[in-house]
């Protein structure tokens, strides 16, 4: 019910704009519906369904903007929300960084919507969770997981003629499977736009395998090790770095992208030569909307080429101040890799540690982007190209900047966490202490 078509959304937005008396008006109309099941101890613990739609108006006089919002869509309500936004704008302080509205833009159609996912029912969710529970129960293990699907539409229109619409679906699944003794734990997570790609049975079997395989972990000394990061582990640690590709904080001198003496590290060789990072909303494996909240088209953008920083994100305001074109932050980040599988990377490793995922990553020093966190749900010792035995979890203290200077090999990228991320082989990764956690 809350998912409007492009035409339905456009009609409501046009009507709202027609009521505006402000210098500039922008209106967004968004809705979503979806549901979820959460399970633990091999049984459903909570489940729910939410269906919502709302409309927001930003009215601007000069550089003073007011916002109001509503979830009723009759003509009287729409008129009321516009006049309320206009009243608030008159009371608002001037925003010296206010940017005039963009005019009409063209946005390519995104690939974010899938009908199979949009029509998921509570019974489909229950059936999928049933399969995951089946894997755990058959192996006498305990499962705790979460399955969620959502369909949403986002649309905006402004008084200068800009209109954008996007419809998307998502289904996400994660499960932690533990043995009954609490001595082994495994985990998987995956999300897709298209339900038919989601194989909860296969994913649950991977988690179950890790739960069994990680039991009876041995302690080895913390220190510097060659690590093989599964794509999820690599994604956990790198998502912190992507947010730092911001021109403003770099120019201001308060980012790892700032240069000593002033300026930014744009154009510098900051990473190993084999590191290439770009974003692309049309990536078929990881599509995103083709426009962002500023009404700017998202395009394929190169962030790092052969280890050199090629672009930083500029907001419209900062771009104007610096006399450059705005560059929106990337979604659908892709780290290029090779053709090797995770198994291939393990085979080529004389001594090393395989990391399933990281947990509780926090910034320790924003100056160097030093992060701390822990391994979780399956950490293994590798010798002579084989997994030898499970090891106890480690705390790490490492910077992704240092890590991407120590890249020995990159495998084939897969959709995970924040992007298309390859499994990575990294030398001299710093583990600082042991954890008893399982």
């Amino acid at each position, binding site marked *: 019910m809350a998912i409007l078509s492009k035409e339905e959304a456009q009609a409501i937005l046009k009507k709202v704009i027609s009521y505006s008396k402000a210098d500039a008006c922008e209106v967004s109309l*968004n809705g979503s519906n979806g549901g979820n099941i959460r399970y633990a101890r091999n049984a459903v613990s909570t489940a729910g369904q939410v269906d919502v739609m709302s409309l927001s108006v930003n009215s601007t006089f000069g550089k003073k903007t*007011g*916002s109001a919002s509503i979830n009723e869509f009759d003509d009287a309500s729409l008129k009321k929300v516009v006049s309320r936004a206009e009243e608030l704008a008159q009371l608002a302080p001037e925003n010296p960084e206010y940017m005039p509205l963009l005019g009409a833009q063209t946005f390519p159609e995104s690939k974010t919507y899938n009908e199979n996912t949009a029509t998921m029912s509570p019974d489909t969710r229950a059936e999928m969770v049933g399969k995951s529970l089946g894997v755990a129960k058959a192996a006498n293990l305990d499962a705790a997981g*979460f399955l969620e699907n959502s369909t949403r539409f986002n649309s905006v229109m402004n008084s200068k003629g800009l209109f954008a619409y996007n419809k998307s679906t998502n289904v996400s699944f994660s499960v932690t499977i*533990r043995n009954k003794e609490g001595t082994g734990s495994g985990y998987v997570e995956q999300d897709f736009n298209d339900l038919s790609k989601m194989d909860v049975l296969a994913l649950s079997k991977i988690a179950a395998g890790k739960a069994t395989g990680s039991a009876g972990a041995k302690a080895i000394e913390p220190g510097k090790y060659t690590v093989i990061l599964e794509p999820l582990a690599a994604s956990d640690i790198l998502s912190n770095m992507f947010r730092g590709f911001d021109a403003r904080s770099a120019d201001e*001198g308060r980012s790892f992208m700032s240069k000593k003496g002033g300026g930014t590290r744009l154009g510098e060789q900051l990473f190993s030569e084999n590191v290439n990072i770009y974003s692309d909303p049309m990536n078929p494996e990881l599509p995103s909307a083709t426009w962002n909240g500023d*009404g700017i088209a998202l395009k394929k953008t190169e962030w790092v080429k052969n280890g050199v920083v090629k672009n930083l994100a500029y907001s419209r305001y900062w771009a104007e101040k610096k006399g450059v074109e705005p560059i929106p932050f990337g979604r659908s980040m892709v780290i290029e890799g090779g053709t090797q599988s995770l198994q291939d990377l393990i085979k080529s490793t004389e001594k090393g540690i395989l990391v399933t995922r990281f947990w509780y990553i926090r910034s320790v020093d924003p100056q160097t982007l030093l992060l701390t*966190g822990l391994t979780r749900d399956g950490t293994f010792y590798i010798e002579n190209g084989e997994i030898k035995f499970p090891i106890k979890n480690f705390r790490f203290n490492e910077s992704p900047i240092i890590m991407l200077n120590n890249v020995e090999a990159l495998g084939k990228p897969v959709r995970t966490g924040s992007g298309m991320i390859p499994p990575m082989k990294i030398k001299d990764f710093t583990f600082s202490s042991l954890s008893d*956690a399982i």
Partner: protein
Amino acid sequence: MKRKDFLYLSGIGASALLLPDFGAFANPIDPLQALEKIDVKIKKELADVALNAAKAKGASYTDVRIGRYLNQFVSTRDKRVQGVANTESFGVGIRVIANGCWGFAATNTVTKESIAKTAEQAVAVAKANAKIQGEAVQLAPQKGFGEVSWKTPLEINAFEVPIKEKVDLLMNVNDIAIQNGANFVNAALFAVNEQKYFASTDGSYIDQDIHRIYPTFGVTVIDRASGKFKTQSALSSPMGMGYEYMNARPEDKVAGVITRYKNRYDILGDVKEATRVAKEKITAKSVEAGKYDLVLDPSHLWLTIHESVGHPTELDRVLGYEANYAGTSFLTLDKWQSKNFKFGSDKVNILADKTQVGSLGAVGYDDEGVKCKEWNLIKDGVLVNYQTIRDQAHIIGLKESQGCCYAQGWNDVQFQRMPNVSLESGKAKLSVDEMIKDVEKGIYIIGDGSYSIDQQRYNFQFGGQLYYEIKDGKIAGMLNDVAYQSNTQEFWNSCSAICDESDYRLGGSFNDGKGQPGQSSAVSHGSSTTRFNGVNVINTARKI
């Protein structure tokens, strides 16, 4: 993550982009609208529609929460107002048990028809899940309270204070920082008002009016020549009180290397001192890694208590309900059953409560209609209890819930959330100066910083805002690059002294995350300055 995407996409305008994470469907409103109240009679009528509709479809238990959640957020950066947001989120969440299984549905169309339909959806969800359910839900009995109400004790409702007054105050904060040599400063003020109406088939109709406030800032100082930048955050605490928190009295100020605050806060005084110490950090010496006695100020220790005591004593974590996200707990049931698990030294007594005046956790009743109270988690160093809710109380042999159920909004299902968890002050008279006098080689840490802990809450690493070296009983100067690592049980057993109650202060988390889909809650942690002997300190400096 998805919710943030949604907010990001939904807000083409700058003001919407600046909205913090207020909940998925918070709508901007006129500040004056925030003062309008909904008649309790109407809420009762609507609640009865849900209770009856769910019962008619076969629910054996139903609770309904009609929630109006107001947020006000004023943010400034340097010399400009970055955003003023007033949001309201209003809707109805209905939770049922049908065929022995939970179901939940929510709507923001608050009409009798929509509420009845939503109640039916909740029953349908419960019945679909009952097909794959194992054991039936067991609810601890709860008597109905009839029609009752509760309100946060406050002197000044923050929503009644004009926005202009708040903007002027924050701009003043920024001016002081810049005048004193800061390169950048952000100052913000958050106010929250939860107007929650709860009704259940147990016969409770509970109307509550809950207020929280959080002023904060961050100062940044940059040394272009060396390329270094340093920051200092406000030493305020989020509190469960009104705007009176912003009016500091002399008795609320704790003197020392930097002023700290008790039940009222002086934001203008704090930002001046913050700028001074941020500048000092540029040239402070880097710590030598090793073992140190740590003297931890309450403005720092609250977070260590939160992570290493608050979370592992959550019964749902112990049982595995959070295994797929936050994790489980090392405080397994056998340790509690043994009645002699030494969590900490004899000096360590830790209380859970949902009643302390001014705290973030204080409410009259929780989100499943249980009256709030206080109990011990750790007594003389021994683990004696957990925190729990109605459907898990029977597992630890309790006949009633401890009242720890909370949902961040009407559209989120309620579950176990942490009450206030606080360290009791030392019984013997002991000041901070007296405590420091006994330390040969130590570090005095003030303010919360970087924090990370494993999924069973054994291994942690904490940083802070300010570090002072203690040499032979005296403060010897500021340090940089400090973080301490320990194991929870080892750390609390190294607790060697706790200052008396004259030093007791609350710290807290305004946004503590838990659950899937993720939910935020607010919780306080009180303590007096406390010493821990021989803790491992690492040096966090790196070159890139």
